[in-house]
């Protein structure tokens, strides 16, 4: 009973932290912001954008990880309290997009931290991000 309640609350109240790992073009970042705006309004699902990792449940990461940023991504990940989920949003965060083979960036977020869901697109549509969030939440056990 308690477990079901906790599970319900987790699914219904995902607070997100947006992390840019550096090696992207910021197209995805703008689309994340657009997803929170009146047109798409992610708050319908209880999503709130949080400024500090301590308050967050879901990390939405964009961009491939640049060498300069690698440690920072790890540090932020560690600061998010359990249970936490990571969404790699956009081609950069998944596999490095057009920057594959660039000397100053790694392939994607999953080279540094574990990732729970991937959102294809360059950039994804805000609706695609919504779809990913809903899918992820439905899969939470």
């Amino acid at each position, binding site marked *: 009973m308690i477990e079901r309640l906790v599970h319900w609350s987790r699914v219904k109240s995902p607070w997100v932290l947006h992390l840019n790992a550096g090696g992207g073009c910021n197209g995805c970042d703008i689309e994340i912001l657009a997803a929170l705006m009146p047109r798409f309004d992610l708050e319908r699902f209880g999503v709130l954008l949080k400024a500090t990792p301590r308050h967050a449940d879901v990390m939405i990461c964009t961009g491939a990880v640049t*060498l*300069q940023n690698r440690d920072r991504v790890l540090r932020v990940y560690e600061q998010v309290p359990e249970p936490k989920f990571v969404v790699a949003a956009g081609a950069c965060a998944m596999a490095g997009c057009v920057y594959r083979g*660039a000397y*100053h960036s*790694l392939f994607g977020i*999953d080279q540094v931290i*574990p990732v729970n869901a991937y959102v294809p697109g360059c950039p994804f549509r805000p609706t695609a991000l919504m779809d990913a969030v809903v899918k992820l939440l439905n899969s939470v056990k």
Partner: protein
Amino acid sequence: MNSEAIFEKINGEIKDKILEAAIAAPRRISVKVERGQLLAVLAYLKDQLQFTHLATISGVDLGENFEVIYHLSNDTTTILLRILTPRAEPKIPSVCQVIPGAILYERELQDMFGLLVENIPDPRRLLLCDDWPQGQYPLRKDWKFNRPAEIIPGGK
């Protein structure tokens, strides 16, 4: 003053300081100078012909030499002011005393090509990460990058 007039002026007034000048394309003038004359020519262009805007400094690896191109604009024309510096002794003078806005581009050149900018006011690293190894200059043609293997989580 249009490009032709500027070209005439350069060819007339500072002919002794430059190696060659040419109108490369509409509104583009290419000027070659000796390394030692760079500051003098730059100062002349800036003070006499209002080339105040330095868009950027490009480095090109030509093998034996590095070519360094200063892209200067005024309201009608862009001048590509170029100097050569030998690979064995890659030194260029800093232009920050003439054009203070050049500082970021000079720092970028130091990072990327390993050029030594003499009298640069701020010689720190600009773009490369803190633990980048010394003596590696990514934009040199003989510098090759070996990709690390990509790990796809979840196995093959």
